[in-house]
């Protein structure tokens, strides 16, 4: 009887040192894989957009097929890393809320007036299911238009913000 294969061993990540990621004149991502093939218009996708922002980045070719997974952005060569990080920041915009100024609720829609790491903003939330609290105290918010916001740890907000937030959870 041969030993059963471990599932985890079946998964191979891209060899980060042999991947190079750059941009072409059209601002598109160009990736050269370890096997030497070159792909343009590559889309980087976070496998865990919420819980893991710099690891397990899947690279999709222009048809949506996966070219491979970058296990950790940090393992890439500095150039590639910068390009990828910049691209990801563009694709995933999720400001961190630092202070809640006011909450106005009417018939289920709540208007939030907040200060974020990227500046002040006002947005509306349609249902309380769009506010997800994780065990760590992290709060993920999706507004009525599909924009994302996060609170890193709601226990660390100022008391007034916490009180306001608690009315929504």
């Amino acid at each position: 009887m041969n030993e059963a294969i471990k599932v985890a061993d079946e998964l191979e990540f891209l060899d980060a040192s042999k991947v190079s990621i750059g941009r072409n004149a059209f601002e598109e991502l160009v990736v050269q894989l370890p096997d030497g093939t070159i792909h343009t218009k590559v889309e980087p996708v976070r496998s865990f957009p919420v819980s893991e922002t710099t690891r397990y980045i899947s690279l999709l070719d222009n048809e949506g097929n996966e070219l491979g997974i970058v296990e950790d952005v940090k393992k890439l060569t500095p150039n590639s890393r910068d390009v990828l990080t910049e691209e990801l920041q563009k694709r995933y915009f999720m400001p961190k809320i630092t202070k809640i100024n006011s909450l106005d609720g009417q018939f289920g829609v709540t208007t939030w007036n907040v200060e974020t790491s990227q500046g002040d903003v006002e947005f509306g939330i349609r249902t309380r299911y769009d506010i997800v609290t994780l065990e760590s105290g992290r709060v993920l918010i999706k507004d009525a238009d599909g924009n994302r916001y996060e609170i890193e740890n709601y226990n660390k907000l100022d008391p007034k913000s916490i009180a306001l937030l608690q009315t929504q959870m």
Partner: protein
Amino acid sequence: MHGPMSSSGRGRSHRMGSFNGKPRRKKGNNELTTKEEVPELLQKQAQGLLEKGEEIKIAVSTDLRFDSTYGKDWLLVTDKRLIAFNQSGVLGHDIREVSLTSVEDIEILEMYGNNILKVTTSENAFELARYSKRLTPKFNLAVSELEKLSALKDADSGDGGRGRGGPGAGGRRRGRRGNGGNGTQPGGDKSRCEKCGEPIPSWSGVCVNCVKKSKLIFRLFKYAVPFLHVIIPAFLLMLLIRFVAVLPPILSKELIDNILMPVGTAVSTNQALPETSWGQLQGIADTLGGWFGSMPLGGSFGHLIAIIFMMVGLRVFTMGTSSIRGYMMAWVGQNVTRRLQNETYEHLNALSIDFFHERDTGNLMSRITHDVSRLRDFVANGLQDIVGDTFTILFMCTFMFSYHWKLALWTLIPIPCLIIFTIFFGKKMSKVYHVLWKRYANISTILASTIPGVRVVKAFAREQYEISRFSDLTHQVFTGEMNAAKLGTLYRPMMEFITYSGSIIIWLVGGWQIFQGDLTLGILFMFQSYMMQFFRPVYTLCQMNERFIRAGTSAERVFEILDTPPSVADKRDAVALANIRGAIEFKDVYFSYDSEKDALNGVSFQVQPGEMIGLVGHSGAGKSTLINLITRFYDPNEGTIEIDGHNSKEIRLKALRQQVGVVLQDPFLFAGTIAENIGYSKPGASRHEIIASAKAANAHDFIIKFPDGYDTMVGERGARVSGGERQRISIARAILKNPRILILDEATSSVDTETESKIQEALERLVQGRTVFAIAHRLSTLKYADRLIVLKEGEVDEMGTHEELIAKDGTYASLCQKQTELSKIRAW
């Protein structure tokens, strides 16, 4: 709760009698016996048939006759023969006699609503006894004793699959009596109480007759014991509060008699202030009064102020202590709730699947929430209220009698009325509320079934029907509430009237006594205020019985969960098989979910470690059942399942389940993220592993296309992902834990053929070195299977490789052929 189910109603002669009219409970006569007292007449007749020294070994009575009327026939068995008395005409009996040696087969024909015991000899067959399902346990026992007597047992187990009787006439032979293993028997007759044999109301799930309230309530105390250090002070505080609460009328009496009246009369008649005989309190009043000695109206006004201060003081004191005490008891109550809930939930998790199949979710949920909080109320408030109210009444009576016993006697006249009235109304009210409670429950039931089933409702355009069903229920609630309101609005004024009549009596009798100079105005006022205070404690005390019953029922419902032993449980000496190789052998396994219809009927086969087995068969053939036995969701009724040569019942459940990965036919996802759902099978699984197993299940590609990737919330029961996606997530979940035995029950039935072959390719490497059971209706799914097992009506019909089975040209071959034909049509 313990022991075999459906052992109800033995030793009962007139079955119908127990349904109508008064329940008749014969305690101690409930023992399952196959040696009943035979009526003399029959005994005489039987004696004529017997040889010398022949002894009656079994005597059982039926409750049905062959002419389909209720009545008692008899079956007697000696060591030589069977004798059946079947009544014909008014008094006469058909007597059938069968010699034991000629008996070839004894079977129980399971019919609809009744069973027939049939005996076959080499020449002919006799239907000897007919009985209703209630007597099933008795006759099962009788038959097994009979088998012993006739030495038939061995012959019978030789070929279990004989299946005589077949489906003809709606009857079916049951190869085995599923009641063998005690706790193992799932289902059974939960409609009747095991102790008293009375039907159990389905809303409660607990026999109302048999709830031994006192015992249960005593048991409830166990949960209060750890908090006695708070309960006892709170109790003492309560007594103090109750005592203080009856003091104010005495103060007002003092105020009137000793301060206001003298002043009033002194003003008009210039009399001296009368001496008071009021010891200590007066002393305090004096001292307090002394402080106000310089007041214009002298000592008396000082007394007034003092007493008013005392009144305020008492009030403030009761308020303060009441809230402290309330807080203490709330703490106790919540602690009891928490402990009970945690304990119940923990036990619920230990219970086996059959427990959940027998009861609805709503019922179980209400036990953990509703019933537990009722118990909390009882522990925290109910009991103390009862004691407290008794004390309040005692205090009041003591004061009244010590001040003026004659008037006290008069005052108490309306009290019996009050009691009778309250009890009478209480009963009515509780009936009305009981009905209401059920009606409200109906509303939640309908909501619980239609909201999750909303797609079906909409797809069949039955909204209007559901709306009218719902509005019927709300109408019922409306009428119920109005009935309650009718009673309620009647009750209050009536109560007030009785109380009022009490105060009229006091005015009348008291007034007369004042004329006689036998009573002071202050005492009259004091009595009036007590009269007003009487009402509440009397009311609660009258409700006492009701409260006990309710708490008792709730306790029973909660304790039923706690007392049910898991039917599939670890034996004490169970082995923890750390590394299962994956050899599986079924040895003549019988299993039935409900002991009426066999789901597996003598299944035997052997699987080598690392083999991939395809399970094929018609819907309902028993494929999922077979798998339920491997994972030990259930244990077989008879026969054994061996895993690596160990009887599966001897393997520690946890060890077994840790090494078995299952994808159920109807995959269930928890509300949470995809990553959480995949990782559920292996606590602490790394993201690396999660991605790897998702890849193997061909799920990775669709997952990363969700904006939230692996962090996507799948919704309740995975409602926000498609059926095929749900299946792939649950395949990933099963693979992740790296199981030695992998079970795929229709795991890819909802994905398209292309995705399926991708999954198969990924799995092909993974299944190596594991024992795999794959069930599929789409036979192409099983192309990698080493061997196929074809099940048919709970039996193994064919077994072998694809080629062998095709060559055999049996069930499998014809299934295959039909599917290829079908695919040709499709291709065209």
